């Protein structure tokens, strides 16, 4: 039972850690499927994290915060689109620039706005996303009623009830949004006209163009969706997982999401599994530091590096060659 409890908790942590990765990964998926490479996921998330927290702090409404986060991420998306679609610039450079821009601007604005050293004030009450408690799930309310801590109630419950309460219930609404985005993305990409065109424009924009569809329009649409999803990811970090913005709080998650995207070979369901895997590896590494193997203590640094080492191993061992969308990274130029 004890192992089972730990397992459930690790998986619970996995879900929380995977959510921002998943949102960013799906964001990248839309963009890259349309042929626009995006290494600026990190920057967009960071910008959204800041603006969602800032607006939530000022207005006290997390929903307004979410909107602001999405809007700010969309502005950066627009910039990326302008550079890489309209002016056919180098998509990698544009992404790098956006990461720098977000990392500088968030702190700069936060400082001149709140004077708390590039941080937003802590959020509370309506300024944060509360976790959604499912009916009959064990949650803080039960804890208050019985006077026992949640963890104790949890370990007393039967396993199904525990899985239900710990794993399924009790996450922020954005977590459910993220996971619902997976089938939705799959459906949009493979079952709708928009998806067909989107995938086509990432493979061969000339085919889309000569079929009478606007390449520029499609690509901007994709980049915009990417902006929205990055916005949600950032808002999740700052207003659901945390209660406010701290500088550089995305801490490289945009790059991990990018890795997951390549890992998933640009497919929605695979993206979910890849992000869950990354989340799981992190959750494990966080929970089991200083493992003692009969006298030999594995140094904490090794556990810290474990998710990354395992990623490389899995990549080398099982994933094989990932072929990106064929027109990816190349601006669509008709007249040379």
């Amino acid at each position, binding site marked *: 039972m004890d192992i089972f409890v730990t397992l459930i908790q690790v998986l619970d942590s996995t879900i929380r850690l995977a959510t921002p990765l998943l949102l960013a990964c799906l964001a990248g998926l839309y963009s890259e499927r349309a042929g626009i490479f995006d290494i600026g996921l990190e920057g967009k998330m960071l910008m959204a994290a800041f603006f969602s927290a800032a607006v939530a702090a000022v207005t006290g409404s997390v929903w307004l915060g979410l909107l602001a986060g999405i809007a700010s991420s969309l502005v950066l998306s627009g910039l990326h689109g302008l550079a890489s679609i309209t002016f056919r610039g180098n998509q990698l450079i544009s992404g790098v620039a956006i990461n720098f821009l977000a990392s500088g601007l968030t702190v700069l604005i936060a400082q001149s706005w709140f004077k708390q050293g590039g941080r937003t004030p802590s959020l509370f009450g309506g300024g944060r996303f509360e976790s959604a408690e499912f009916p009959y799930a064990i949650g803080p309310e039960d804890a208050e009623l019985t006077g026992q801590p949640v963890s104790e109630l949890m370990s007393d419950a039967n396993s199904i009830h525990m899985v239900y309460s710990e794993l399924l219930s009790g996450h922020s609404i954005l977590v459910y949004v993220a996971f619902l985005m997976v089938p939705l993305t799959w459906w949009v990409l493979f*079952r709708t006209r928009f998806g067909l065109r989107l995938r*086509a424009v990432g493979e061969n924009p000339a*085919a889309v163009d000569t079929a009478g569809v606007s390449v520029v329009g499609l690509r901007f649409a994709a980049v915009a969706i990417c902006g929205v999803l990055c916005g949600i990811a950032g808002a999740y970090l700052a207003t659901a997982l945390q209660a406010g913005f701290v500088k550089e709080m995305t801490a490289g998650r945009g790059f991990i999401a990018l890795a997951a995207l390549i890992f998933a070979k640009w497919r929605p369901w695979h993206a979910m599994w890849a992000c869950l895997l990354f989340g799981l590896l992190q959750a494990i590494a966080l929970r089991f530091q200083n493992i003692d193997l009969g006298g030999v203590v594995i140094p904490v640094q090794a556990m810290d590096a474990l998710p990354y080492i395992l990623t490389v191993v899995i990549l080398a061992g099982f994933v094989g060659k990932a072929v990106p969308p064929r027109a990816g990274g190349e601006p669509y130029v008709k007249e040379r």
Partner: protein
Amino acid sequence: MTVPAIELKGISKAFGPVQANKDISISVAPGTIHGIIGENGAGKSTLMSILYGFYKADKGEICINGTKTDIPDSQAAIAAGIGMVFQHFKLVENFTVLENIVLGAEDGGLLAPSLSKARKELKELEEEYELFVDPDKRIDEIGVGMQQRVEILKALYRQAEILILDEPTGVLTPAEADQLFRILDRLRAEGKTIIVITHKLREIIENTDTVSVMRRGQMTATVKTAETSPEELAELMVGRKVLLQVDKVSAKPGKPILEVENLRVFDQAGVERVKGIDLTVRAGEIVGIAGVAGNGQSELLEVLGGMRPGQGSIKLNGEPLALSGHGSDGQARRAQHIAHVPEDRQREGLIMDFHAWENVAFGYHRDPAYQRGLFMDNAALRADTERKIEKFDVRPPNGWLTAKSFSGGNQQKIVVAREIERNPDLLLVGQPTRGVDIGAIEFIHKQIVALRDQGKAILLVSVELEEIFSLSDRIAVMFDGHIMGERLPHETDEKELGLLMAGVAEEAA
């Protein structure tokens, strides 16, 4: 006089400093097939792309069925009833045929209804025009001939009344080309108007009603096909007299240079593409390999050229060559005096972003003649390039241009110059004149024959039967990874070869 289906008036188009089209006017009567010919880079594709809304003209106007029509993009062209099959197909390779056909012409936001509707209509179109395709195959699983059908179906599905085809037969076998023109005939009979760009004079003469000739961005003549001859068209095109037939003395084959025994080749997916063939090429002869694209000729050439591994045995001048691992790559082959003009000059034979003078060393960049100490001797390279450019009449004669800024014909001349000038024992040649204009074809053919006359062995792979006939001293036909039979050119004809190429066994043929 009926109203012309298409009328272009004073079309001009510049790409930066390049004037691709200069004040071009042309009119095409409805229900006719109109041919356009011209050298590489004459501006044919540009003109048609303007008509299809792919490029925007700088000046000029377009009338469709007598009404002035603005065509800012392809959508407008489609709405005006124009369909176009581009020289380089505009298909999404990892989509199915059906998906490619509905792309951009879906009805409704959901895919499923569009696809099932398209599937039904496709059936009807197929029956009507005998354009059979498997709607569920992916584009990268079907041959180029099929791909072209998909392009045509795409246009017909959008109810095109005017159909433009840019060099449609460049990639087709003779049989496929004949079939294409039968389909075009049928379309014309239905009252559709067709424009065909081609480099092949025979096709113009046999199939078109009128023909226009373009040269250096201008329209030099428009004539009724019935009132002209291939010689006259060739002269209009190139501006000088052209020999349409290769003239060569008969071969004097010497000792065997290349001996292939039981060669097998598997592709990356493990599919056997060459299934145990035997072949000999002697000094002083050209052996032509005929066959429909995709029957193992490419793989044969690639194994011999060191681009992929194989099994079995090959000997050069009696010495066995490695077929895999060490000593089997392109460098080793070149060291063994095998030169290779690859099938795809843009993907293989040249680095499109390299200067011409860098490309002149491509593959031979380790030749000591090109080195000076630790470094490459760029001055020597450039001098060498100048010589070759002059000898092979590459235009423009500027070694500093990147490969991509030469026309297809001139790109091919660079490749041929590089390979032939090595004076190899064995020359491998794949599709030497694909998409190349007749002026350049004439030149390249002459060079190949000259090499043979020096007593070198040449293995030629081409899908152009005409080319096979006019160059080869001996013809082998490949089908499904086997050699179906060997013939001497004067003892056979297109019909017999066509049957062999279709896999009809020797006895039956």
